[in-house]
């Protein structure tokens, strides 16, 4: 099967391409890229015969991408797919459907499932399920410690062999600095990424939102920005000492951005991500006790948000990740203190970033694509993804920048509905998602 994607505006940050090009795909790989007009020689093989010769003279299907933007597939570094354990909230099937619809060709699955992904059987289960039921690639992230308890290292070598590209205790921050040091040293043997959710649990104790004017007025217990910044500082120091690859999850505070910028300038091997919600919302969203504004780390102040924009623009922050966290409606429809942390994000992330950041000129389109695709691929060490070179995996995200749409959670592919963006009007939408050359989502 040969597929020709014709006449789209192809943007590839790696090869510095932004041009109207045709892309030819076969066997799940990109086999040919050319200037428009060069491929007019192609004829559609209407007899259904496979073109077998290496000369790309015939194709089986042509996708007209005129007026659309063709990018390397977007990779979400941070999602909770909830399977195994909470299949009422999300499954690998529905989570990857949501990903495909949101323009993602791959998602990293965080380990806080039930059972926790701290051993190879769980990793194998996830990969097997993903292979059979998943629409997009699933990259499991293994637990850093057994049971995410922060006491003993998980069997990281086994996790690596089973297919984990990274380890993390994510929402159960590693408070023991020695354990974190050892995790970094140990993971280095496999060149695995250590992903850290930076939160000092003593400073954040009982907190349910950002400590600021809004928490003060609402009487909700606050989590100071320092709870994150203190741990960012600790983990940067440990990364510098061990030489490990450290990736900081969902950075939310201005002080964290500053620390990361300084560390990068010194040459520490660190990368960082930010979520769309931290980029566009602030603590003000909590007013009215809206539990869809409750997440961890919390929505911060307007000044923090501004620092995140700067950090994203100047490259201090490498990637945009969703922290997609599905929760059952009944669990969120309670008093703010009792609601679980987290919101879903796979189906809104790209639209939000295109509308708010690219739309306002805070980020160029190419920069946005790098942060959704190229950089996440680099962080995970995936050489065949994140770019559109000949021989690369044919994982593609196709965007319609002019498409206006209204977020309607009731029509989401995700099983959950906990989004603060319901009803938002957005401009720019993923309209076609290809994974290994197969169309897994196509907008009407």
């Amino acid at each position: 099967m040969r597929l020709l994607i014709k006449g789209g505006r192809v943007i590839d940050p790696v090869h510095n391409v932004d041009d109207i090009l045709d892309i030819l795909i076969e066997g799940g790989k990109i086999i040919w890229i050319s200037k428009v007009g060069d491929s007019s020689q192609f004829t559609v093989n209407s007899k259904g015969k496979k073109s077998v010769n290496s000369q790309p003279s015939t194709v089986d299907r042509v996708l007209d991408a005129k007026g659309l933007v063709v990018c390397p597939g977007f990779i979400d570094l941070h999602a909770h797919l909830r399977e195994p354990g909470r299949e009422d909230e999300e499954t690998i099937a529905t989570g990857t459907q949501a990903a495909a619809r949101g323009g993602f060709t791959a998602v990293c699955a965080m380990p806080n499932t039930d059972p926790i992904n701290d051993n190879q059987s769980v990793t194998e289960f996830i990969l097997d399920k993903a292979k059979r039921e998943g629409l997009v690639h699933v990259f499991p992230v293994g637990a850093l410690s057994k049971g995410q308890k922060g006491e003993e290292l998980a069997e990281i070598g086994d996790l690596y062999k089973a297919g984990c590209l990274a380890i993390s205790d994510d929402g159960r921050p590693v408070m023991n600095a020695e354990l974190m040091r050892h995790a970094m040293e140990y993971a280095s043997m496999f060149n695995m990424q250590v992903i850290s959710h930076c939160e000092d649990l003593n400073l954040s104790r009982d907190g349910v939102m950002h400590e600021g004017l809004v928490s003060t007025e609402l009487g909700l217990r606050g989590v100071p920005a320092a709870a994150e910044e203190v741990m960012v500082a600790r983990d940067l120091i440990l990364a510098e000492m061990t030489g490990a690859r450290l990736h900081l999850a969902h950075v939310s505070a201005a002080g964290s951005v500053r620390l990361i910028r300084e560390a990068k300038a010194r040459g520490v091997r660190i990368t960082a991500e930010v979520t769309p919600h931290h980029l566009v919302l602030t603590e003000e969203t909590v007013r009215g006790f809206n539990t869809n504004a409750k997440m961890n780390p919390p929505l911060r102040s307007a000044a923090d948000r501004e620092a995140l924009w700067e950090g994203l623009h100047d490259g201090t922050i490498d990637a945009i990740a969703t922290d997609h966290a599905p929760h059952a409606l009944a669990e969120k429809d309670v008093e703010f203190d009792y609601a679980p942390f987290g919101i879903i994000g796979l189906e809104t992330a790209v639209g939000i970033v295109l509308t708010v950041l690219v739309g306002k000129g805070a980020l160029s389109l190419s920069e946005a694509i790098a942060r959704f695709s190229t950089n996440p691929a680099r962080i995970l060490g995936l050489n065949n993804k994140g770019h559109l070179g000949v021989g690369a995996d044919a994982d593609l995200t196709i965007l319609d920048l002019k498409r206006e749409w209204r977020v309607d959670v009731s029509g989401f592919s995700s099983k959950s509905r906990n989004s603060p963006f319901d009803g938002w009007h957005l401009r720019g939408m993923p309209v076609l998602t290809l994974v290994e050359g197969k169309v897994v989502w196509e907008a009407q």
Partner: protein
Amino acid sequence: MGLKQKDLLSMRELSAEEITLILDTAESMKEVSTRDIKKVPTLRGKTVINLFYEPSTRTRTSFEIAGKRLSADVVNIATEKSSVVKGETLRDTGKTLMAMNPDVVVIRHPAPGAPRILAETLSASIINAGDGAHEHPTQALLDLFTIRERKGRLEGLSGVIVGDILHSRVARSNIHGMRKMGMSVRLAGPATLLPRFIDQLGVEVFTDLEEAIKGVDVIMMLRIQLERQGRTFFPSLREYSRLFGLNLERLKRAREDILIMHPGPINRGVEIAPEVADGPYSLILDQVSNGVAVRMALLYLLMGGAS
């Protein structure tokens, strides 16, 4: 006339005009409590439910007496367990109550914002009788009433609220109420119990009690919650009392016509010395009496006033 809004959830959402209306109405309600037969038929046939998820004697009793003096039927539901522990969501509890057609539900709850969930769910009026550290608007209203009763005005007066501001819904409601009514507000307490951004609400912040009480018209002492000890907010009750307790010696720095208030229950000898609590400048028991009048006024106004 009545109040425009269906519910009373916070002082933040009340205007100065609405506060004045409530206080004026409370003045005429106060007279009822001095009669031999302390009952008027105003709210006959109306139902008030007191839904208390936290232990409370004074506020619950005050609402109950207020409702009964207006001839409403008052039902008390007390559960110390939160809805989550009980297994039923607050929204479901609200729907169940609504099926019994109450006119007003008074709710006290440990979680900030809980009354709003009921307000969204029920067509009955909801009165917030304290939600976590968020607000306790009827306390602020009765405090304002008590100050106005004694001073004849609120505009231009100054007050200082002393103690655990961080965890106090009384402080938050009074800050909004006093500021809206033209009072200047100071806060005093240990630095660990003063929220970091509270000055942005237009108050002056002190950590020295003697400085804080100089020149003000009203001192409002807050109860120091004994369980805060041991969470590293302050070293001991003994030291707290030495630094922030109000005693006769300290009171010499205050104006001669100073008024002392306390929302109760008081810890005698901790945040307030017995001689101060029982002294001539103490309004603590006036606050309790006025609480009934203010709550009668609110029940009356929320149920449509004279209409």
